[in-house]
């Protein structure tokens, strides 16, 4: 079939782990947007969900750090973190190994990838799944972009990965959904946790929603670190999705800084242009 759904959403662990400490009105509005995203996703009847995430040293470490890695297992498990800390119970998540293998093989014509047949999801994937597939029935294909341990993959290669993913999805008979999940500006797990640069976030989101390639690829890591913190490096996930949905425009369904969640909480979907 092809790509049938694409969107972006936040994944910060506080979204579930510190839910009770947030402004209830903001939190509930954010949760409502996530529920709307779930309904929109389900309406497209996807057979698999690709989650482009930026994990946080759950599976990958500086002894052998892939820039890009795609899961290729029949099942995964998560969260790797303490269940009480994250507020999500540990569970097994179905994978789609055979489809993963086909997508990886197709993408390898265009980009270098690592693959993994074992993967323990951290909050970076479990928080999105908690809201989008809370019964864990939809097969998931995880993708990791290293956004934690420099040297980091350049932004243009994230775009190229997204393009390759789109070509691979369009060549597959299955109905495939893709979501990307990352922070925009944030300083997670540091003394500046809770700091959020809303104007920077909104400027980035405007470029993302308009799919402005040149402007998205113009960010330097030095500028991003200065203005958006180390969490800002996770714009790589958004840029990969923009490459995957090249030529399509997005709609912002929710954005609000929620400091106790340590991120500008975001929900957006891309209206996929016909191909």
């Amino acid at each position, binding site marked *: 079939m092809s790509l049938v759904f694409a969107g972006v959403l936040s994944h910060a662990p506080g979204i579930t782990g510190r839910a009770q400490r947030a402004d209830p009105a903001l939190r509930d509005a954010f949760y409502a947007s996530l529920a709307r995203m779930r309904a929109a996703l389900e309406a497209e009847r996807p057979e698999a969900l690709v989650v482009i995430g930026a994990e946080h*040293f759950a599976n990958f470490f500086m002894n052998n750090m892939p820039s890009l890695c795609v899961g290729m297992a029949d099942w995964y498990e998560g969260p790797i973190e*303490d269940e009480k800390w994250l507020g999500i119970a540990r569970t097994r998540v179905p994978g789609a190994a055979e489809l993963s293998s086909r997508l990886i093989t197709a993408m390898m014509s265009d980009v270098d990838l690592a693959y993994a047949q074992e993967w323990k999801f951290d909050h970076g994937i479990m928080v999105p799944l908690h809201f989008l597939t809370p019964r864990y029935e939809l097969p998931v294909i995880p993708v990791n972009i290293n956004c934690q341990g420099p040297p980091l993959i350049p932004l243009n290669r994230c775009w190229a990965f997204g393009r390759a993913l789109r070509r691979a999805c369009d060549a597959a008979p299955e109905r495939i959904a893709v979501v990307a999940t990352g922070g925009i500006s944030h300083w997670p*797990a540091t003394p500046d946790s809770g700091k959020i640069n809303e104007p920077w976030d909104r400027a980035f989101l405007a470029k993302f929603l308009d799919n402005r390639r040149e402007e998205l690829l113009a960010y*330097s890591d030095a500028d991003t*670190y200065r203005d958006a913190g*180390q969490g800002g490096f996770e714009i790589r996930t958004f840029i990969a999705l923009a490459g995957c949905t090249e030529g399509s425009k997005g709609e912002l369904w929710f954005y609000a800084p929620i400091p106790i969640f340590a991120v500008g909480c975001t929900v957006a979907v891309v209206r996929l242009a016909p191909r």
Partner: protein
Amino acid sequence: MSLYYVQKLLFELNRDPVVRRQYEQNFDALLKSYALTDEELRAVREPDIGLLYVMGVNGQLLMHYAALRGYEWDAYIAAMREGEKRYGPVRTGLYKRAGQST
């Protein structure tokens, strides 16, 4: 400084149930598996969360170790701030390097 090995210890402690059991049963024996300096050993053992932060340990690793050692979220943030006051700015790692170059 052997920031890599401090972070590797915390990475494995966070994710590997076998390493977690070793930590619970004989922490000192586990620590011998990693090439840590005396200062790093002290910071990990106490723990001195603020010093670990100043040494450059990534918060995505450190926050889980802090939680394991009983630090609630606000106490974890406070410990890092206290570390900066007591030991000075972050010495190496992402939070130093990313602020200076690339």
